[in-house]
Every structure is written in C-alpha cells, then in structure tokens.
C-alpha cells in the first residue's frame, strides 16, 4: 500500500515539477530574448550618437590643444583672449552631451528596471523550485524510511513464524516428559532384580507344588 502510494506521489510530484520548470523556463527565455532585443536596439540607437559625442568632445580637446600649441610661441594676451572662447565651446558641447546622455540614461533605467523585475521573478521561481525540491526530498526520505521499516517488520515476522513453528510443541512435550520419567523409574526399579534367579526359583516352586500334588494323587493336565 505504502509503496504504491509513495510511487504515485513521486510521479505526480515529478510531473508537476517538470511542468513548472518548463513553463518557467519558456517564459524566462522569451523574456530574456525580448530584453536582449531591446538592449541591442538600444545599443544600435545609442552607439552612433555616443560615438559622435565622444568624437565631438575629443575634437574640441584636440582643437584647443592644437590652438594652445600654436599660440605658445605667440603672445600670452592672445592666449587669455582665446581661453574663454574655448571654455564657451566646451560648455556648449558638454550641455549637448548631457542632454543626449540623459535621454539614453532614461532608456537604460527602464531596461534596468525590467532586468531587475526579471531577476526578481527568476529568484522567486528559483526559491519556489528549491522549496519544492526540499519537499520532494523530505517525502522521499519518509518513503525510504517506511520501506526500511516494512522490510524490518517482515524479517521480524518471518523469524517469529519460524520460532513458533519450532517451539509449538513445547507444552505438549513438557507433558510427555513425565511419561519418559515413568519409563526411567520402571527401568530403575527393575535394575536390582535378577530375573534368571527368579525364574529358577519359580521352577523349583512349581516343581515342589507338583510333587505335593502327586502325594495327594493330583495331576496337571
């Protein structure tokens, strides 16, 4: 009974687990695919612009550097006059890049949130599967213990059956032993008597009786 029940239980559990894992894995895969697509699109849309930004920044730096290099041999006043202009251009560039970065960061954040949600879901699913695994392990342990117990009980009962077979006649044989004792007593009581002499004595006695009878004209037929 226990065996059947536990087998059914394990089957059901494994089926359920497989279904759960399948559903979960398929949903996860689709989600991840979507996310990957989004990320790639995001990368495609962002990368050129970011490249352009970086190129602009680098150009600005390089241009300023080149200007500085060119101006070095020239007068210092010209330098001073040029510097604020350079700073102005720099700040403009920076503003542009910041705007673009903000846009990109919004997109990134949305994707990050999605990722976080996915991660949460994934963790929850993993936790659920772990709890199920634990339950399954507990059930399996209980089942194995039950099987062991039943086997032990079977062995014990077999042994008891054998013993009862062997010792069933105990009471009866105890009563029979008294008959054995009586036989012993009979043999012991006969041990001291010499039967040969007894027989001879009997013969002599009968002969005497016979002679006495003859005296009185008595005969044995």
């Amino acid at each position, binding site marked *: 009974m226990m065996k059947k029940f536990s087998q059914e239980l394990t089957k059901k559990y494994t089926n359920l687990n497989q279904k759960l894992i399948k559903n979960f894995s398929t949903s996860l895969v689709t989600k991840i695919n979507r996310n990957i697509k989004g990320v790639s699109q995001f990368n495609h849309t962002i990368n050129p612009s970011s490249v352009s930004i970086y190129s602009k920044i680098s150009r600005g730096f390089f241009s300023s550097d080149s200007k500085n290099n060119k101006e070095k041999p020239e007068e210092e006043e010209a330098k001073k006059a040029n510097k604020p202009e350079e700073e102005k251009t720099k700040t403009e560039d920076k503003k542009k890049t910041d705007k673009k970065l903000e846009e990109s960061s919004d997109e990134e954040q949305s994707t990050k949130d999605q990722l976080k949600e996915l991660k949460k879901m994934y963790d929850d699913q993993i936790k659920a599967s772990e709890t199920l695994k634990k339950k399954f392990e507990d059930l399996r342990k209980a089942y194995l213990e039950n099987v062991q117990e039943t086997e032990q009980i079977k062995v014990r009962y077999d042994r008891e059956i054998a013993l009862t077979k*062997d010792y069933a006649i105990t009471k009866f*044989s105890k009563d*029979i032993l008294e008959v054995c004792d009586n*036989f012993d007593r009979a*043999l012991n009581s006969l041990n001291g008597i010499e039967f040969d002499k007894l027989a001879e004595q009997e013969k002599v006695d009968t002969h005497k009786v016979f002679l006495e009878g003859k005296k009185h004209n008595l005969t044995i037929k």
Partner: protein
Amino acid sequence: MNFLGIGMTKSGLMNILKKHGIVEYIPLKEKFDPNKHEAVFDYEDEELSPGIVGQVLQSGFKIGDRVLRPAKVGVIKKK
C-alpha cells in the same frame, strides 16, 4: 529379557522426541549453570572441585536452543 521391552519403548519415544528437536542432556561433571541446571542440594567431595555437578537426579531436556526442563542436580560445595 523381560525388561528389555520397556527400554526399547523408552528409546523409541526418545527418538521421536529427537525428531521434533527435543534432546535429553545429562550434565554430569559439567560446570554448574543456573540457566540449565536446578540445584537440589550441595555436598562436599574430595575428588571434584567446587561448582561442578556431581550428581544428576533427573536429566534435563532441551527444545532447540531453549531449555524445556532444567536438570535436577547435586552440586559440589567448598569445604
């Protein structure tokens, strides 16, 4: 002789008992074991050492490994 028949009957009975796992034992000059022997009396003896069965009044019987009836014995005691 006349009493041979009684002995034969007894041996036949003992054989039947043996067939069913019941064996007689006579623990003469064995060490006294309270599980197997029932000490009826004790006495001093010069030849045998103390704690040994000197006389067997009634033989014991075993069924398998269990004692069916302990043997009634006289045990030798210390001087």
